[in-house]
């Protein structure tokens, strides 16, 4: 599909056109994934960050309380998530090699494997050899968003720090796949730049990866740029209609690719999107370091404001009431070696 075709689809605001796309996407999703929805729990390990990304609550210029969890602290958070039923964990940090080096992440992964069957990381980009170490330590998934594929805009919003390097970031999923990582998640932060261009470029990124590493399970995320502490940041508005179209189009072009939905979206919208193409969602999310067991709510500086604050139990109840099968376990941890 060409960039122009994507533009045309996203610009077509007729109700019948979005409905037709959604119907086709829903059918294909049911055929490929049934009514199973994978659930995972995010765990913020650290918010130290050396990059200055204008849209992020963790950026190095924000005067927020910086925290890095010590093993006894993240174990407490892990135990909490495990007790909630979570079996797939996504561990996140700010982008700081210095504060969260591979040795720190490795230990966190090893400890996590005592509680979880699937372990993914959303941290700073690394070299292949480092991903190999993490894979051997039990990491199966890597999430790395390009944020925007518009180089000019990329430079405008990534002012300093490691994340400034567009090409190194673009090549990150290739390095992770090379190292053996099983699940790779890509994404764009909708609203940072021209949306059709970003979606088109994301599709190309996935296609390139599929050609080089066909065995990896890919998924994509479309977080929409949101407020952080009520500060408005989006330059390009992606309304619900366009958002629905992006989800549906992604499903139609990539029948087997997973589509993640984050707690940034409202419960109402999340519930509707489940029917259209979503295959994974976070549950019981807290986007602050130590947010589950260590910090009082008024002490938290989240990476972004969440709209869906339902507990794991509430999410499960909701899924079942809508005839979905909540899937907590989608991997059984095995020894990882190439």
């Amino acid at each position, binding site marked *: 599909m060409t960039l122009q075709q994507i533009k045309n689809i996203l610009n077509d605001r007729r109700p019948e056109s979005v409905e037709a796309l959604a119907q086709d996407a829903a059918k294909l999703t049911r*055929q490929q994934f*049934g009514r199973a929805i994978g659930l995972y729990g995010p765990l913020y390990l650290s918010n130290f960050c050396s990059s200055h990304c204008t849209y992020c609550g963790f950026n190095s210029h924000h005067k927020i309380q910086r925290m890095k969890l010590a093993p006894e602290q993240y174990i407490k958070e892990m135990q909490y998530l495990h007790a909630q039923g979570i*079996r797939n964990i996504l561990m996140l940090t700010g982008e700081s090699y210095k504060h969260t080096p591979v040795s720190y992440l490795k230990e966190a992964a090893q400890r996590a494997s005592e509680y979880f069957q699937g372990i993914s990381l959303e941290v700073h980009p690394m070299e292949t050899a480092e991903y190999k170490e993490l894979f051997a330590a039990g990491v199966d998934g890597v999430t790395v968003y390009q944020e925007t594929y518009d180089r000019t805009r990329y430079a405008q919003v990534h002012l300093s720090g490691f994340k400034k390097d567009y090409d190194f970031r673009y090549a990150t999923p290739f390095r992770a796949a090379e190292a053996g990582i099983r699940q790779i998640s890509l994404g764009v932060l909708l609203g940072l730049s021209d949306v059709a261009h970003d979606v088109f470029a994301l599709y190309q990124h996935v296609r390139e990866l599929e050609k080089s590493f*066909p065995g990896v*399970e*890919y998924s994509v995320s479309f977080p929409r740029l949101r407020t952080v502490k009520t500060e408005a940041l989006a330059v390009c508005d992606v309304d619900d209609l366009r958002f629905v179209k992006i989800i549906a189009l992604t499903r139609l072009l990539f029948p087997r690719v997973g589509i993640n939905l984050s707690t940034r979206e409202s419960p109402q919208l999340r519930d509707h999107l489940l029917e259209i193409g979503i295959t994974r969602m976070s549950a019981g999310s807290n986007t602050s370091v130590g947010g589950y067991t260590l910090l009082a709510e008024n002490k938290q500086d989240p990476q972004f404001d969440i709209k869906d604050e339902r507990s794991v139990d509430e999410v499960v109840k909701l899924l*079942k009431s809508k005839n979905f*099968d909540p899937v*907590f376990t989608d991997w059984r941890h*095995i020894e990882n070696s190439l």
Partner: protein
Amino acid sequence: MNSSPLTIAGKTFTSRFFLGTGKFKNKKDLSDSIAAGKSELVTVALRRIDLERHEENILEHIPAHVTLLTNTSGARNAQEAVRIARLAKASGCGNWVKIEVINDSKYLLPDNQETIKATEILAAEGFVVLPYMTPDLYTARALVKAGAATVMPLGSLIGSNQGLKTREFIQILINEIDLPIVVDAGIGAPSQAAEAMEMGAAAVLVNTAVATAEDPAGLARAFALAVEAGRLAYLSGLPQQHALAKASSPLTGFLYDTPAN
């Protein structure tokens, strides 16, 4: 009419309709489908078994008389398949394993070479190995040699409901391989299951079609009936199909005419 029960690794099955357990919207639909389809063998991905959460543990919803066939979904090579199979056994899931080695997340086609390797290792360890494969005669022969208990060729792409796109190649396996041939993947309608059974397949394994049907138990029953009908047709000796009409006045009939005086 079960005049011909199926035997795999010394175990006898009266039903030749095997069921997969993925994609069901809830566990009740699954157990109802097993009951309605009278399946005696179901396959479960180890990656989906949550041993800790009793009510969510899929194994709790599979009756005791049903043979559990754990599959190695998620394995990208032989070594991973072997590790998953061993883990399944250690977790109490028994020693029947469906080898599923897939290193292509787009088409989900099994990697035959790695499947052969995994079969060899696991069969030698005493597993009952049912390998899922892309239908190919050489691979099937290698699987026999490696100690497989059946050979399970795909009818078409998994989850595609497209039926027997690989029909000619499956027929070759049925003709040439002495193990039971179980058609796995791609069967989307009872008529397609019947077709496989009429060809002489030993059994069919269905998942997506049943799991995503509006009434899964209803469709499971329809599949079971189709499988029985197909089997009976096969045993009864189906009359051969002819591409063209048979001429009622053959050109060479004169050779056998009684000469006139």
